[in-house]
């Protein structure tokens, strides 16, 4: 028996069972703890937002009277009466505005983003696509306030002149259209980046299979590659709409912050749940402050529901996936 064999046997026949299993168990518990910690934040947020956000509905708001939840969710004037002295808040029209705007912005950013991704992944040369990818990554990290700056410095003027060209008097360009354009710009990097990854991960065999059957490059790109990358593209839409619904700073600079509605004309001023929240957060107590948390609560519910619906559609779409 060689020395090595003796040493190895010594290590192998040590009763390692307990120790190693024990280490595994400990490590598992540590990892599980951090998972529970990660998961607990959403619960903390929900509890905290609910506590604050439900206050206006269940308390008398120091004598003003509680907010009626039905009219809060369905009404079409933000506040009737004086701030801090009235409980007649409603956000029905703001919910409609928010969904309308998010939908329209996705309508622009989806095709543009996906086709840009297709261009980067399949058409452009290596060098150009490398460059474009860096541009997209940079844009994803631009603070939203800068998008707001661009919106108020360029897009508002563009929309104002556009409306004039159509013979419509817009309110300084503050409009549904300006908001939609800013949000489309902001969601573009997210959609492009994620779609590109999913387009790139489409199996080469499928692509070559299509080409081998005599399809042209363009036909292959549209009929096979985009179809196969469908679920990833859908995921990018979900993230995109999340950002569109949750964006606050930039939107409040171009929306015009209307106080009644809903606003369905493209040149009409509008408001979103986030811009409404942001406007009153300067104060720190009182009903006009607490009600912003109710708006935040509604916003989270809206985002959750949208995600659920989109995920459901994604599953439906995914089940007829081209494999």
């Amino acid at each position, binding site marked *: 028996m060689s020395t090595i064999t003796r040493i190895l046997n010594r290590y192998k026949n040590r009763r390692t069972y307990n120790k190693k299993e024990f280490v595994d168990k400990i490590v598992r518990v540590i990892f599980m703890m951090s998972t529970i910690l990660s998961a607990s934040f959403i619960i903390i*947020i929900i509890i905290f937002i609910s506590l604050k956000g439900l206050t206006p509905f269940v308390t008398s708001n120091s004598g003003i009277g509680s907010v009626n939840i039905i009219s809060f969710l369905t009404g079409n004037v933000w506040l009737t009466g004086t701030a801090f002295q009235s409980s007649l808040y409603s956000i029905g029209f703001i919910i409609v505005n928010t969904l309308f705007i998010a939908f329209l912005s996705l309508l622009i950013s989806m095709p543009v*983003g996906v*086709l*840009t991704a297709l261009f980067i992944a399949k058409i452009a040369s290596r060098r150009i696509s490398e460059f474009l990818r860096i*541009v997209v990554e940079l844009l994803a990290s631009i*603070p939203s306030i800068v998008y707001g*700056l661009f919106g108020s410095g*360029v897009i508002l003027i563009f929309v104002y002149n556009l409306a004039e060209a159509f013979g419509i008097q817009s309110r300084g360009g503050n409009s549904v259209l300006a908001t939609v354009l800013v949000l489309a710009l902001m969601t573009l990097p997210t959609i492009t980046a994620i779609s590109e990854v999913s387009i790139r991960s489409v199996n080469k065999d499928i692509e070559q299979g299509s080409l081998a059957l005599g399809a042209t490059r363009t036909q292959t790109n549209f009929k096979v590659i985009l179809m196969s990358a469908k679920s990833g593209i859908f995921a990018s839409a979900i993230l995109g709409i999340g950002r569109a619904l949750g964006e606050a700073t930039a939107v409040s600079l171009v929306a015009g912050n209307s106080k009644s509605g809903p606003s369905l004309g493209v040149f009409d001023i509008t408001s979103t749940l986030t811009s409404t929240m*942001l406007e009153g957060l300067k104060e720190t107590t009182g009903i006009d402050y607490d009600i912003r948390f109710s708006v935040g609560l509604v916003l989270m519910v809206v985002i959750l529901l949208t995600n659920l619906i989109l995920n459901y559609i994604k599953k439906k779409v995914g089940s007829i996936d081209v494999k």
Partner: protein
Amino acid sequence: MLNKRNIIDIIYQVITYLAASVGVIALSMIIFFVFSNGLKLLNFGLLVNDYHAEFYNGGIDDPIFTFSHRPISLDDKVFYSQKWGIGLVDSKDREGNPIIIIEYISGDSPLLEIYDKNNEESKEIIGIDKGFLVSKISYYDKNTSLTMYGAESMINDIESTNEIREIVFSSLGGGIRGSIITTLYLISITIIIALPIGISTAIYLNEFSSKNRLTSLLRSLIETLTGVPSIIFGLLGLAVFVPLTIRFSEATSANIVSGSLTLSVILLPIIIKSTEESLKVVPDSFRSASLALGANHTQTTLKVVLPSAFPGIMTGTLLAIGRIIGESAALIFAIGTAVKDDISIFGKSTTLSVHIWSLMKDEPANIELASTIAIVILLIVLTLNIIVKLISKRFIKEF
């Protein structure tokens, strides 16, 4: 030969090019906008200077006037006082406010004798020099010369007086050194907090957890976190992390640590998601091979699986850093908006993007400096991007 198929092909192609170019144009317009507004303020001084200017209150007794002539080399825009031997020029500071700068001071100017008025006993000479700002000069016999009236009126005022009661100087402030340092602190602390938690969560979900209801519940709770708008994270920071850090540290208000904790929560889903994606790509054969060699689960995960997932985790981290640099809505609540020069991790300060936010909130807003800071942000992100690409390239090459 153009047949129908070719025409359709061309139409599709044109649409693709059009869409891609719309994306490119929109994106380049933003970058153009930022650069055209902000490039002229960008210089090294901005990056390394303090935000708060150093102020001096100068006094002068029995001045001996000089009668040095105006140097010929002096630009026409400079106003010169022969009596006091000083040349002043109108300018703008980094925040766009009007200022008056000392452009020239002659060797025998009485103003060189100015002493520190706040220290009456020692009468220490301040030693003013070219480049200082004069914010005001007050007299015994007439109204104060102020910055708002311009350099010309200030020169006229001193030329017609023999006594100066007080002259206030300052250095040029408005630098963003403090905000850059805060941003770097925030990135490091946030990554130190979020990366271990995020990676261990991803490992648990992907390697250790068994498929049961609890796991899928935990997973969907974490996924929900991605849908929360950042303004709500800010409120969470204000309500939970700020009091927590005040309780357990020397902090007395919102601080860098509370900001980092808040950002960590924002980043967790991003890090978890990207780590999990890269863990999924690690082939199962690695795991079986390691287990077959008598390694336990922990050894397999830490020695084989995790290193293979490393490039993916790096990319996720980069995304996370981009998010830290760009975040403002949450940080306004969780770290505060006070621009500082001496940064301590338990003190208030601002990151670059919050700095932009507070510039925009000014009346009137300073769009130039805001754009300049945006350029700095873009440059930092670009640098990090390149660094990470190099690291992962090296890593892939090595193994």
